[in-house]
């Protein structure tokens, strides 16, 4: 019995080691959104493309899961993920965009120069719309289900790997949900 008691600290240490080891793989910046399972808050934004409609929360419950990509022309990682978004758009994945913390002409120039993967795209010059649903920086990509509820938040550039491993399958699953 006493010998078993001596094993306790060892077992405890091994468990801690395991927890820390798993923790190495976790990104402390990848926080879950406070809006998981909830609809986006009400918002309306001005358009980026002149003469276009902006983006509002009512664009999200159209019976189809969509991506909401928050971007800016001043953001480096956005340049990295842009080709991925373009490819997804070509494959027919619906994406809405929110141009964060810059004037609309800067966003428009970005889309003209690099291509425009968005169905709707709104301008959020003050950043307040993004803050309404917990945007901490750009780029961030939200997965919104058929009913306009936030299901997943991806922080940082969207890589082909992220799409294949996580977001693509999730979109597929959401498409099948009633």
């Amino acid at each position, binding site marked *: 019995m*006493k010998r078993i*008691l001596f094993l*306790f*600290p060892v077992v405890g240490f091994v468990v801690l080691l395991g927890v820390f080891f798993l923790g190495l793989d976790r990104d*402390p*910046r990848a*926080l*879950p*959104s*406070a809006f998981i399972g909830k609809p986006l808050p009400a918002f309306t934004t001005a358009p980026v493309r002149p003469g276009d409609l902006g983006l509002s929360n009512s664009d999200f419950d159209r019976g189809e899961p969509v991506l909401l990509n928050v971007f800016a022309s001043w953001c480096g990682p956005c340049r990295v993920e842009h080709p991925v978004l373009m490819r997804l758009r070509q494959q027919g994945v619906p994406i809405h965009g929110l141009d964060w*913390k810059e004037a609309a002409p800067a966003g428009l120039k970005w889309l003209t120069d690099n291509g425009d993967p968005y169905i709707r795209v709104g301008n959020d010059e003050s*950043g*307040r719309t993004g*803050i*309404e*649903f*917990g945007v*901490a*920086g750009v780029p961030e990509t939200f997965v919104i289900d058929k009913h306009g509820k936030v299901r997943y938040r991806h922080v940082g550039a969207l890589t082909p790997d992220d799409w294949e491993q996580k977001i693509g399958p999730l979109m597929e699953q959401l498409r099948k949900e009633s």
Partner: protein
Amino acid sequence: MRRLLALALTFALLAGPAGAVNPDEQLSDPVLEARAHKLSQELRCVVCQNQSIDDSDATLARDLRIILRERISAGDTDKQAIDFIVARYGSFVQLDPPMRLDTLALWFGPLAVLLVGGIGAVIYMRGRSPAQAAALTAEEEAELASMLKSDEAR
């Protein structure tokens, strides 16, 4: 010289930690500003995660400081103002975490570890208490008595 030193000391003591709050963000009402300042020390900046929004130079921290001051000027209580930010960024931003079912481990985890360790230490130390010396046999007693006597006789 002494005066100069005293003056320097006074200024040094007056200088508090500056924080990243810019003058243009501050509220003109000192009471409200003091409240906002205190609250912003309790909110974590989500960009540079180990700083409060009061300390952080990130633009998002600045936005949140301004939003906090807007809420307070609009008549929010401290709790309402904090809840406004928590509703958007989650409980993670609270540097002073509330006591809830999912934060119990955070609040009482260290105490639990101390208790377990303490109990373990007590058990260990009890097990190590030196063995009591066995009582002397009758033979040894007799020998001892004779030794003492011979000593006394000398």
